[in-house]
């Protein structure tokens, strides 16, 4: 089927299997490889993207389900050279280790802070519950989310 997507501000149309995971379309058709495969079953959050501003696990989402939607991947978060405050906060706090979970972690944080601009530790814990980091950089990630929230409230 033909699928039409707005990805990072760009209108894209492609003809593909409607059941194909969005993750594969982003990575293989559009070369947006910042979105990662971690488990393929929606259990780790590495494949997180934003669809109409809400987080979505692209590895378990058939591309047909997001036909006509607006998608933001990690590549589309910065405005030109200006990083998004969440990206800045992750950098400043060093909330990155191998970096493989980072795109999903950053995008989930963007979605979380939209809903809860003033999050408690518990809000962050439940908001990022589906995001796994095997290097276990969680303490700095928690700090980075608070740091980003503070910046975004300014």
């Amino acid at each position: 089927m033909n699928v039409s997507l707005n990805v990072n501000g760009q209108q894209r149309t492609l003809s593909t299997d409607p059941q194909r995971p969005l993750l594969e379309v982003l990575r293989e058709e559009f070369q947006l490889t910042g979105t990662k495969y971690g488990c393929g079953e929606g259990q780790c959050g590495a494949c997180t993207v934003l669809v109409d501003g809400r987080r979505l696990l692209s590895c378990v989402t058939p591309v047909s389900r997001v036909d006509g939607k607006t998608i933001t991947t990690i590549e589309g978060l910065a405005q030109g050279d200006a990083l998004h405050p969440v990206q800045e906060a992750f950098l400043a706090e060093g909330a990155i280790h191998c970096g493989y979970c980072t795109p999903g972690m950053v995008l989930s944080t963007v979605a979380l802070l939209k809903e809860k601009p003033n999050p408690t530790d518990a809000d962050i814990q439940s908001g990022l519950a589906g995001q796994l980091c095997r290097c276990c950089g969680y303490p700095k990630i928690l700090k980075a989310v608070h740091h980003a929230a503070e910046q975004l409230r300014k």
Partner: protein
Amino acid sequence: MPTWPKETKYIGRHVQRVDGPAKVTGSARYTSDVQPEGWLYGMILRSRWPAAKISDISLEKARQVPGIKAAILVREGERTIRYYGEELAAVAGTSKQACLDALRLIEVTASPLPFVVKETEALKDSSPPVWEKSPNLSKPKVVEKGDLAKAFGECAAVVEGFFTTPVLIHHPLETHGNTVSWTDEGITAWASTQGIFSVRDGLAGNLNVEQSKVRVISEFMGGGFGAKFGPGIEGALAARLSKAAKAPVKLMLTRFDQSLAVGNRPSSFQKIKLGASADGKLLAYELDAYGTAGIGSGGSTEGGGGGAEFPAPYIYTIPNIRVSHRGVTVNAGSARAFRAPGHPPASFGMESILDELAVKLNLDPVEIRLKNDPSPVRQREYQLGAERFGWKQKYHRPGSSPGPVKTGVGCAGASWGGGGGGTQAEAQINPDGSLEIRCGTQDLGTGTKTLIAVIAADLLQLKPDQIQVRIGDTRFPPSGGSGGSTTAASVSPAVFDACTQALEALQNQTGVADARGDNWKAACKKLGINPLIVGGKWQPGLSSSGTGGVQFAEVEVDADTGFVRVKKITCVQDCGMVVSRLTCESQVNGGIIMGLGYALYEQRVMDSTTGVVLNPNFETYKLPGLADVPQIDIILLDMPERGVIGIGEPVTIPTAAAIANAVANALGVRIGSLPITPDKVLAALGKTQAAHA
């Protein structure tokens, strides 16, 4: 002898990661992101049998599937399969669907064989042998010292215990895999690996290609934890598929594959007897242990150090000992090195039984450790840590915590070797003042790139982001695999040498007396048109090995639900001279949280009836998440005079033991089996109540 500068601007301080911007914007290119022109999907057919005789595999129908460009066997002829998930054949095709379709059409003629997947069953003489020529239970490896029977007779207190630890899966977030292009000119492999040179040599040896014709690249990689040293069967298959299909092949494993075939931490079953004098001096120790490293049990496995044996008695010097280790082979994937091989299970058994002894002698756990630990570093750490943690205020008699939510504290110590050497590096100074440092090491995420930038920046009085760090390519000067916490100690001295020698050459060639800092650009300009390239190599005196660390844990255990929550971990760790403080702290956090997973959540579960791994996904194999993270207090014992020492491994060792001791302190009963899941807590409490009834 070279020495590190005393005054530093970046070394030992918080410096932003140089690879951070690429990682937060998604531009960091991992192995799985590499898509060379015309690349094909690669996929592996794995055994559905835990044990079988394979008489024939037909690829004919698979080859007919539209889009399939190559189909190959792992091995020609009859063969025996020894675990569920063992590689049989592989295909390459233009789409994932084509590959999936093709795998379904591969015809395997097999006669299933009896199998055994559990250690306790494999111990028995009647269990079906995993290997035809040797029994599943290996002969014991015994070490004896002193007169054990006599010593136990003289002890004021003797305790006995049985401790078990599960098989763990590494589960780096980026799965194992490679993208390989094999043309007439040679092989280029983008590998998710901890050792680009070991992958190069492995592929060259495996495929009979000269090492000079194999190039391995690993720009960014998503974790390894000991499981990613060699090319693996999947790497060799990707190369062979590429040759057959005349196109690059990307073969990344799935999370499911990850649980079956690319390594794990061996299990352990430890019967321990420990005795001491009335004042707590350890006199006698007896260990009868067995464990499984899967089909690789009893010996070293890929990556080294993957056997089921572990150091015993752990960290303490005891005059009279008898230690017996046996490997148990089962029909499951082979173990590989897993962050501090052997040490976490060793620490768990020893530190658990030591606490039991302390209770029996009515001694404080810190006190009994101070009495017996031969390491002056850990002596200092226990005192420092106990003070900072508030041990004296928090420690109470086991089981005396009131109410339904019990609190408890525990502690444990660890030791690790580390060290390193052999690395070479080169510095290229360009006439425009830009600087490249090249080294054939790799950054697993630990911060190697940042470490190199920090050293070069300090020595040349530049800024870390002025330095182009180029690593992860076998065309660069050689370095070893990143394992055993050896990377920092191997790479740092080589970078030091390259930078100091390059500076000297620059000054000699340009006549600038001190070309560092503000003079740098002007000096470089005097080079004319040719860049200056100077090689350096590892030098003694700038790094060392041997670290001690201790950790304290505070837990809450809900006696109604059995749920354990770790509230706080205090970690006191020696790591010599800290180079990059930020990434060093992240390594400590990571080691501790991985240790927490070992203590409370993680275990591979095998099914005796079918021989399969029952939890090959993140829904049922529980990794720690953000909500599980306690307050972590890190005290790094800065000892710059010792030079650089790696930290990845030592910090993960004592966590599980400290948590288990804290749980025992909270409950007044010991759970000797990891992970400490709610069902085990409730069972242990039930027994206590029954005993008191």
